[in-house]
């Protein structure tokens, strides 16, 4: 019982204090999981980051499930995931209830007219940063440009782009690269 509670509490705390999601929370998670509770060592933590990044889904939730599972199998995974997702769930639920009562309020509307262009910029900026970390160059820039245009102009479902990109990468690595 004690460990389940600590697991839940730790990931609940991580869920509460991390803003912006994803990679901003890595140092915080490392502090809690590696140094404070010593659930896994530093080397395994680095492996874990690679796995959590490679699997689909929310990054922090993936990490929580992995650590919960490593400690107490499936039940630990579920408890840790619950702890991680619950703060977001409660906060957003309260905001959603509030927002639907005030969405026609003139002051709220004016505030969001100012915020909306900012949000668009906040989605545009990481596109360029992601391009850098994904090592986009002249030979592979057609992938993001082509995929982006298909979604933007032709309304193609991004899921198909993801599937095609995965298969494409596999075929390239397995059959085309060895012949180059």
């Amino acid at each position, binding site marked *: 019982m004690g460990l389940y509670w600590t697991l839940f509490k730790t990931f609940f705390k991580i869920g509460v204090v991390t803003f*912006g*999601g994803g990679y901003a929370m890595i140092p915080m998670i490392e502090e809690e999981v590696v140094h404070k509770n010593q659930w896994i060592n530093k080397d395994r933590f680095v492996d874990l980051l690679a796995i959590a990044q490679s699997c689909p*889904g929310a990054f922090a939730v993936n990490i929580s499930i992995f650590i919960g599972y490593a400690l107490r199998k499936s039940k630990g995974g579920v408890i840790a995931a619950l702890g991680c997702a619950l703060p977001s769930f409660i906060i957003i639920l309260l905001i959603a209830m509030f927002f639907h009562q005030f969405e026609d309020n003139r002051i709220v509307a004016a505030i969001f007219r100012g915020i909306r262009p900012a949000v*668009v910029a906040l989605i545009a900026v990481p596109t360029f940063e992601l391009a850098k970390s994904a090592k986009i160059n002249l030979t592979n820039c057609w992938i993001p440009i082509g995929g982006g245009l298909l979604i933007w102009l032709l309304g193609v479902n991004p899921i198909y782009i993801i599937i095609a*990109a995965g298969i494409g990468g596999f075929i390239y690595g397995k059959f085309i690269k060895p012949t180059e």
Partner: protein
Amino acid sequence: MIYIQLFITFLEIGIFGFGGGYAMVSLIQSQVVTHHHWMTMGEFTDVIAISQMTPGPVGINSATYCGYTVVHNAGYNGIMAILGSATATFALILPSLILMIFISKMFMKYIHTATVQYIFMGLRPAIVGLLGAAALLLMNAENFSSPKINPWQFYISIFLFLATFIGTKILKINPIRMMFYCALAGLLLLY
């Protein structure tokens, strides 16, 4: 019926959400706005704004918000809408749970193999495209107005967009602080 639709939609988003929150923005936008018309592009932008101002992963935040809004817009309230939130959030987490639990051991062995690396050689650049498309789709009249409808709001919006872009990318201003500046500008200039 609406719950089943919510469940399937967010299950799909959970399965294909490679690359964390950023890829998910594109997937949620495509499913929730373009495909199901559960909310407008403007409403979706507000969801991202709220997700970024509150703690937690963007994916979880938008699933919770969408779940509530969809049931609310369908004419139900209170506990029914909360159930919608829970359905969407649970559906989003479920694939992670199954994948991490059943494959974590196996995946540990395969993560460094050539095959997995090849797949990601294709996936990583594609996710850049996904995010770019999400940004382009958000640049519409609902979020920026237009020179014909309301030139004042349009030019202010363009200015706020550029200010946030330069502010966060080059001057490294905290995004949340930047959003508060823009909220203030909206209140003063766009009331």
